[in-house]
């Protein structure tokens, strides 16, 4: 059972205690007091690691963006392959159960894509961009599986999304089919993550599934809004799928696995669709007053959502 007194001591919380005199002043001062040396050291450690790794990786990317035509192709491939092997070996040496090892594994996964790009440039393979991203996703997968690092899985899913979008553009798949494809892919990844998080402790951090909730619902919301404003040729299945996905998310993340961020995302998506739909219909019925009515409807929708979220927040452990 979570201890409610592990809640951070904020001025608002202290105000609710109705302390008086010196006790109130001391409580407010103590609550505003900074952390100890160990906490400062931990923050510095993480900030230096993440900022340092990102800067080095950015340097590598800039190096490959530089016009290096003078270098022989073997040298180009050798540099990237050396970087890939170096980061991979260093990750194994440090251990992928440590943050530094996971960051190195992520760098190796990123360099795998650079290696493919350099190979394609050096040998003019004629491959499409989507093939490059698809192959990159394949090469990065073993690193993601080994590192068990949510940030690397986020990178991998971004590569997969890019491959899908580029494939759809190359094959002239069409906007609707692309939206279905991206929504289904991200939805499947989200569902898989939630299911695997039950037995696997390292998957229980909520950042990636929260991003996936947006990535799964957004491709359904955009065509749904287009349908609501009567854009021609947009399937009525999108709003149905959007509302079904929102309802499922609300049921799951309120009753089974409490995550108010996902609940807020689902509510925001439903509200956006409902408001556009109402605004479009009222514009025809009520004329100039339709805009005002739409605004008041939005006020009501947001009020209900915020009220419900506040209740859920108070009841959360």
């Amino acid at each position, binding site marked *: 059972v979570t201890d409610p007194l592990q809640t951070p001591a904020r001025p608002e919380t202290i105000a609710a205690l109705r302390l008086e005199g010196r006790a109130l002043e001391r409580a407010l001062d103590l609550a505003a007091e*900074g952390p100890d040396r160990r906490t400062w050291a931990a923050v510095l450690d993480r900030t*230096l690691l993440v900022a340092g790794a990102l800067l080095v990786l950015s340097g590598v990317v800039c190096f490959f963006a*530089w016009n290096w035509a003078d270098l022989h192709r073997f040298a180009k491939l050798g540099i990237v392959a050396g970087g890939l092997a170096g980061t991979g070996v260093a990750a194994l040496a440090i251990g992928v159960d440590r943050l530094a090892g996971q960051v190195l594994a992520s760098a190796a996964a990123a360099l795998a894509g650079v290696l493919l790009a350099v190979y394609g440039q050096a040998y003019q393979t004629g491959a499409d961009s989507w093939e490059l991203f698809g192959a990159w996703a394949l090469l990065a997968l073993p690193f993601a599986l080994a590192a068990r690092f949510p940030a690397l899985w986020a990178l991998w899913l971004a590569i997969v999304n890019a491959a899908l979008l580029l494939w759809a553009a190359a094959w002239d798949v069409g906007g609707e089919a692309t939206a279905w494809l991206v929504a289904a892919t991200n939805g499947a990844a989200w569902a898989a993550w939630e299911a695997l998080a039950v037995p696997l402790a390292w998957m229980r951090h909520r950042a990636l599934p929260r991003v996936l909730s947006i990535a799964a619902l957004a491709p359904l919301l955009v065509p749904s809004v287009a349908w609501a404003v009567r854009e021609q040729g947009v399937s009525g299945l999108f709003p149905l799928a959007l509302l079904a996905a929102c309802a499922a998310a609300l049921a799951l993340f309120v009753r089974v696995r409490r995550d108010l*961020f996902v609940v807020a995302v689902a509510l925001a998506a439903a509200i956006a669709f409902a408001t556009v739909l109402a605004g479009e219909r009222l514009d025809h019925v009520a004329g100039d007053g339709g805009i005002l009515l739409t605004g008041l409807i*939005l006020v009501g929708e947001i009020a209900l959502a915020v009220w419900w979220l506040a209740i859920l927040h108070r009841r959360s452990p």
Partner: protein
Amino acid sequence: MALRELRERLAAEGLEIPSEEAWVEAARHRAHSPWFVAVLAGAGGWIAALLVAAGLTLLFRPTDAGLLGLGVALVLGATAGRLFARGPFGIQLALAASLAGQGMIAVRLLDDVIARRPGPWLVLAGMEAVLVVVFADPVHRFLSALAGAVFLRFALFEARLDPWAPGALGAALLAVWAAPGRAFRPPAATLRRPLGYGLAVAFAGAFVWPIVEPLVHAGLEGAERAAALAAQRNAAAAVAAVALGIAGARALARLRITLGSAAGTAFLLGGAGIVAVGTRAPGVPAALAIMALAVEAREPILFWIGAAAGTGFLSWWYYDLSATLLAKSALLAASGLVLLAARAFVRRRRAP
């Protein structure tokens, strides 16, 4: 600090404290919703305000004076309404009505903004300053703090006092986050976080202006203008360095770390490097100052505001450097390696 630790420390100091049940009740009270709920309420409030303002304007088609009157009436009514509103609809309606009213007032007052006078901007900044205090809603307070700072920025711009803007905002930011806790005793207890977040975003934004402004006015360069831009950048760099120095020195003093110690020397060396970067990219030390204040105040949201701003400023600096991609690549990799080496050094020093 968690409530349990606070309770234990107050008890250890022999101060009279309520029962554990009262503390649990206070923990459940949680005046502030999570940040994403505030974002939902704020974004919804903004869009609803636009619709309400547009709807009222279309319905009543007010004159210029009427628009100002309607705006003032909406703001006053919403402020009063918020004091008494208990239900969610009333709270959200007050937020939207107030924002709609502020929009109408701003449209009317800035109608003749081409005259380039600071007066209307100052009036709007003053209105937002009053609303931060009287409109008892965290989302509204954040938006008012941010809007007030932006209006002040434009007032200083029109008064040709550009270089003072980052300093004014930095002083306000430090006043809020470096003040002792007792400065925000009830009823001001609910002010600190929304006001502090708004000022942090505005302070970071003040360093965006020197980047954006030359782009907006590209092609108008002259000796006078170049001097003005240089003065603006130098002032921003000085403010950022001072803010970082104060934030860092405050943490060192509290942790009883002397400048002569290894940690103190590392702070001085690191600070000098950051300030050197700040002469070209003042936003970087400014963002680090926000992050340092955030760690001292144990405020994760403030930390992410600083981190996001710092990432943006650093990216812009590297992008804008007058150097070849090869030189940029070397500089990026070298600075990254310096940070990683610093981390390794700190870890070795801390190892038992």
